[in-house]
């Protein structure tokens, strides 16, 4: 294919999707996901707008209350308001999720670019390294990291980030290799552009676009993993208002106070679903665009 043909092909593709129309319309799921994402964003940035109370405030005399007018989500074993804690916990989850994804992506980009651009020896080495990392399930890798560096929010975040990096690195490498053999890159090389110019102006922009989709999907997964680590007692420490830690605390009382674990669990699930729905929606749009 010549450059011209590629241009023509791309132009045809985008006009097609414009005609196809429906991809532009918002589905019910996407709408709901958008609203929930907005709620989470507000909860993370200004939790007091949604829940003015202190998430650590105890009130032993009103412990174990089922959801009622005063406490919409009920209270926990120390009389803390679950709704307030869930809202304030959003911050932890979103920050951990986003930070971990940035760490994972950043590391993935570096490793992937090295492998994809720097010739066979580097490619071979990085690939073998990634394969070793792949041999461990991601969560196990995170656990290993925490065993070495001790539990806590910071280590849990880094651990989740690290364990997602190999996956990103592979995709970036594959994407790089595809783009590198594309006609417009060949053209740029033939026109005498240096290797770095080609990388920065032609290859990377075309490689990184799909990563945006991956990142959105990745945040959902990172949040679930971070909650998992806290649930196992390796992330946020009690009585921090963190969803995984709350879920874990509630499990002790699951036979007598279901609301203690139900609502944090519900928010973890909804957040993961929201990230997935939004990510796929962006994915579809970009494919059609």
């Amino acid at each position, binding site marked *: 294919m010549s450059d011209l043909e590629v241009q023509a092909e791309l132009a045809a593709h985008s006009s097609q999707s414009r005609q196809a129309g429906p991809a532009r319309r918002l589905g019910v799921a996407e709408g709901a996901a958008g609203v929930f994402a907005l709620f989470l964003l507000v909860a993370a940035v200004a939790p007091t707008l949604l829940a003015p109370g202190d998430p*650590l*405030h*105890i009130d*032993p*005399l009103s*412990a*174990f209350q089922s959801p009622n007018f005063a406490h919409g989500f009920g209270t926990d*074993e*120390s*009389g803390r308001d679950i709704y307030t804690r869930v809202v304030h916990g959003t911050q932890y989850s979103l920050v951990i999720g986003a930070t971990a994804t940035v760490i994972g992506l950043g590391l993935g980009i570096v490793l992937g670019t090295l492998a994809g651009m720097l010739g066979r020896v580097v490619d071979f080495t990085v690939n073998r390294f990634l394969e070793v990392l792949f041999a461990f399930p*991601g969560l196990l890798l995170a656990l290993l990291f925490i065993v070495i560096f001790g539990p806590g929010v910071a280590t849990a975040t880094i651990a989740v980030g690290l364990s*997602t990096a*190999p*996956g*990103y690195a592979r*995709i970036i490498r594959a994407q790089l290799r595809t783009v590198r053999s594309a006609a417009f890159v060949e053209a740029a090389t033939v026109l005498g552009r240096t290797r770095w110019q080609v990388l920065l102006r032609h290859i990377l922009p075309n490689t990184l676009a799909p990563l945006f989709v*991956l990142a959105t*999907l*990745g945040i*959902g*997964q990172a949040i*679930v993993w971070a909650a998992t680590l806290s649930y196992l*007692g390796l992330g946020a*420490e*009690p*009585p921090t208002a963190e969803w995984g830690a709350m879920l874990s*605390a509630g*499990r*002790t*009382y*699951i*036979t*007598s*106070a*279901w609301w203690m*674990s*139900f609502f944090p*669990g519900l928010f*973890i*699930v909804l957040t*993961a*679903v929201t990230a*997935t729905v939004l*990510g*796929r929606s962006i994915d579809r749009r970009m494919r059609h665009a």
Partner: protein
Amino acid sequence: MPLRHPARTRRLLATTAGIVALGLFVAGCTATGSDKPVGEPISGGTLTYASGDAEPSCLDPHVGGNFPQALISAQYLESLVSRDTDGQIIPWLAESWTASEDGLTWDFTLRDDVTFTDGTVFDAAAVQANVAHVQDPTTLSSTGYLALGKVTGTEAVSPTVVRFTLSAPDSALLESLSQPWLAIESPTALERSQDENCAAPVGTGPFIVESWVKQNAITLVRNDDYVSPPADAGHSGPAYLDKVIWRFIPDSASRYAAVQSGEVDVIDNAQPDTIVQAKQSDSLEHLDSPRPGASNRIELNSGRAPFNDVRVREAFMRSANVDDAVSSLFLGTATRSYSALSSVEATAVSNAALFDYDPAAAAKLLDAAGWSETDADGYRVKDGVRLTVEFPVSTNQSIPAEQSVFEQIQATAKETGFDVKLRPLDLSSWYAALAANDYDAVSAPYTKVGPDVLRILYHSASIVPAPSGYFANLAQVNDPAIDELLTTAARATDPAARASLYSDAQNRILEGFYILPLYDQQNHYLLRSDVVGLRTLPTVAVPTLYDAWLNR
């Protein structure tokens, strides 16, 4: 991995939904009880016991010496003496005993019809070998070692009479010897390597250790030649049960679900909310047996700042709202304690007035102690240092309700300006934090028969670690007057004088604000209603399955 995101997320969602559904299902279940009338005991059957305590690393309670070891070893090992529910010492492997006038020589007459389950004869030489084993530094004994502190030698007067020689009179000797940590093991078996002996100790008890699959279960089988129940047992001859499966289910909700569904027959460390539920159920029975020795309490490390100042210690106690915490979390299954000793100890002294929740008084005390400034987060500051309390919490030894008590204390103490840092740790990290003196507050259960536990916990000599590396005086009480009272009490032969000395010592400990008593060491068992005859030994309140049988 990112390629598989949606699938993974879906799988996680499904799992979470499954767990939630399972929880609701379990909550909705109503178990059916056994309505078979209780008649003559039936021999046979397998009882499954699920422990919430940490799995021991060694089944020989001489090594180290903690409560999980006592729980299991009481099924296959026996002691020289026992204690009845009135607190009187009663015969077991020793039939009778006499002390010399000066209290320095004790002669124990042993039963002559007992053999260990490996065929070795139980005699004076066997007792000597056991004392030597506990006192051997390479055994790494802690509890047993401390209890035998005054025993300088043993002598076989005849095959059935063993003589203990003491360095000083020991009013607690019999109480010490009644404990599972000083149970008598086969001397032949003790000659094996420690690893072998830890895997399957050999005793004279009603059961025999058959196998131990680590992280899973210990299997015990009946000792058909058993002849030596303690004087207060319900029957004689071999046990009723053929077999005991001893499992470890650390998660309290799973443990309760297991006994509720009948998958296991007995659980320990039952949670307050499940006890309340079990009381409403026909199929479960509740057995409450507070442990002897110390009460559950928070010890403040008086060996380093900030708690080396008695005013700061008192301020901490005045700022901790324990009463509300106990009533909200224990739902009536525990009673607030104001004593250093368990309520089952006759010599326990209570002083509720010392522990009133009074934040205003606490604030004044902190002002007086120089912690008068407050930082932006509301914590007290002195010379640029925040008033921080490092509080390592053993997640193996503190049930979730107790950890929540600590969280509530953390919240109420914050109002006065204490920054309590709760650090949940597994058992080995927790021991390491204590050994490194890296704590300001700690809650460490300590069980011993009788008030002599005060000497182990609060005598300055106990700041020095035992061979195992553990030191029991975690409050690091170093008060010559307390030392003197405890030493004299431990030598007192007259019971009234002994009680009065222990009462003085307790008052001094309480008034020194070294410890914040919470409640008795909780020891709740839930059992299927068709488990009959199960009781706890009045020594350290561990269950004995000797009299137990299955009515099914």
